[in-house]
């Protein structure tokens, strides 16, 4: 969850920064309405007011929504915040299991498990697992997939 928060924060900072830069130039442009050109600091302010609530809300909602479960040789994962997605993948149809760590994730000792099948619609990613849990899951999945493997298509 912290990761999403950081992610959101970074994106937000980039956006606000961009707006601030924009506000520096804006005075010179002719097509900008006068009332805005007179108060260029409005732009970053409005952006902040609009975006900040989502930045705070998104990780909280995501933390509530994101779930995964491995039971009875079916992987089940739920993700999303505004739109939600449930994915059911039977272990026997898994083709590859990836475990990946971005630099932020490494900082926080988290990892992402990517499960791929022959179809894009049956593939899923489980993000931001505790590194140890992710390693165990990936290990377990690839072992079970090996055992159960049929044609996988």
């Amino acid at each position: 969850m912290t990761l999403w928060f950081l992610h959101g924060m970074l994106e937000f900072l980039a956006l606000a920064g961009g707006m601030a830069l924009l506000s520096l130039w804006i005075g010179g442009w002719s097509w900008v309405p006068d009332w805005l050109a007179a108060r260029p600091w409005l732009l970053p302010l409005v952006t902040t007011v609009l975006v900040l609530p989502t930045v705070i809300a998104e990780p909280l909602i995501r933390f509530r929504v994101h779930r995964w479960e491995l039971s009875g040789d079916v992987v089940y994962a739920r993700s999303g915040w505004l739109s939600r997605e449930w994915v059911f993948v039977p272990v026997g149809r898994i083709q590859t299991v990836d475990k990946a760590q971005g630099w932020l994730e490494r900082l926080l000792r988290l990892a992402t498990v990517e499960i791929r099948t022959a179809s894009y619609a049956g593939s899923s990613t489980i993000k931001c697992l505790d590194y140890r849990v992710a390693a165990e899951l990936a290990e377990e999945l690839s072992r079970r997939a090996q055992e159960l493997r049929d044609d996988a298509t």
Partner: protein
Amino acid sequence: MTAGQALPARSRLSAKVLFIDPIRMAPSLLLPLAGVLVAGGFSPRSFGFAALGVAGSVVFAVLRWATFTYAVVGDRLELTRALVSRSVRTIPLERIRGVDVSTPALHRLLGLAVLKLDTGAGGDKQEGELNGVTVAEAERLRAVLLARRAAPSEPEPVEAAPVVRERYLIRVPRAWLRYGPLSGAYLLTPFALVAGAIGLLFQWGEEFGLTGRDAWALAEWLWERPQLLAAVLVVLVVLMPLAGGVMYAVFNWNFTLRTRDGYLVAERGLVNRRAVSLERRRIRGYELAESPPERAFGLVRMWAVVTGLGDSQTRGQLLPVAPKAEALKVAAEAVGPFDAPLRPHPPVARRRRLFRAVAPWLAVAAVALVMGWGVLAVVALALAAVGVPLGLDRYRSLGHAYDGARLSVRSGSLRRTQATVERRAVVGWTIRETWFQRRAGVVTVIAGVGAGSGGYSALDVGARQGVEFAAEVTPEWVAPFME
């Protein structure tokens, strides 16, 4: 199986391919040759260079032919190319999923064929191609390759002419060719031809000293004579159905579909006769597509959903445009019967379809009105009006069904597609719910299939209904998670 047990150790392509190669290379040679001749001022010396170029290409073709060999070694097919660098491509026979034999016009004159091997590797580079074997050899190779594939453990020597159990599923009557123009395929042919001609003109124009300024002048000259432009356009439009029909007939002449040793063989074409073999074991289902005019006449297009087959819409084609009843009969025989009625989706879905079809145009119209662009507003309003029947029809098209072995989903209006795939082809489920869908209480259920387009979705099913659909098809996967 030992090496070279059945086939001569190494075979070459038919020598007759030598007649074809230079002709095929001619267009790419023509320009440099013309360039040399023009630059050299038609002196004997430049003719000498040109002759050298031609001779060089012929020698190159001969060398290429002489150094390319193929052989079935054990359970592999080896393609060896040893012109400058030596490369051996080995294709395990068990990887060959289908064989595609086609005979372009030139090949046909000489009794040759192009054999393409479909290995499911994806990407053209990885697939084997034997360009220019005799038709008899192509047939033999196909029988050998596919027979071994079908029964890898059988000890009997392959040379003992494999028993071919062949049965025609359908021979498409000529009369069906008249449905061609309705399909909308090839309707743009005249335009494509004109565009191609213009493109060529530009390319060659440089060689002949035409510059962009001349082109501009020509365009301006045309622009000042709108009647001429309009006439050309009218001619092209009139030509559309005609050319479309002709092209369609040329491509789909004498379409036949037959079964043969665990394969489906679809053969078609007037000039370029093409035979595609699909392994039945890999066929997972079929898709039907209809456009509104086709629906009016009760016609459909149909293709197979095959694992590991790229470009399944053309290569997996099971029938040309055909009456729906016949198509379903063929599908039942070739792939498997399916006759469960489609279940409708909840009424909320109709509201959503309508909203989607109408709202964007209304928004455009509103903006246009505010900004005072009258024409745009009228056009947008008209499109919004058209959106009403479109949205209703989209809703009517929605449906899903499961009959115990196959599931089927249908959607779309201008191009209504119904996909029917086997239960065992499903490799996973994705249930998606956007924020708006959640408010409306519907979800999109996507069945992941390792074939065809990868996933087939049932749009806007009721939340409960959708989960139940997935649970019905694969109870052991979904049921444990049903809350």
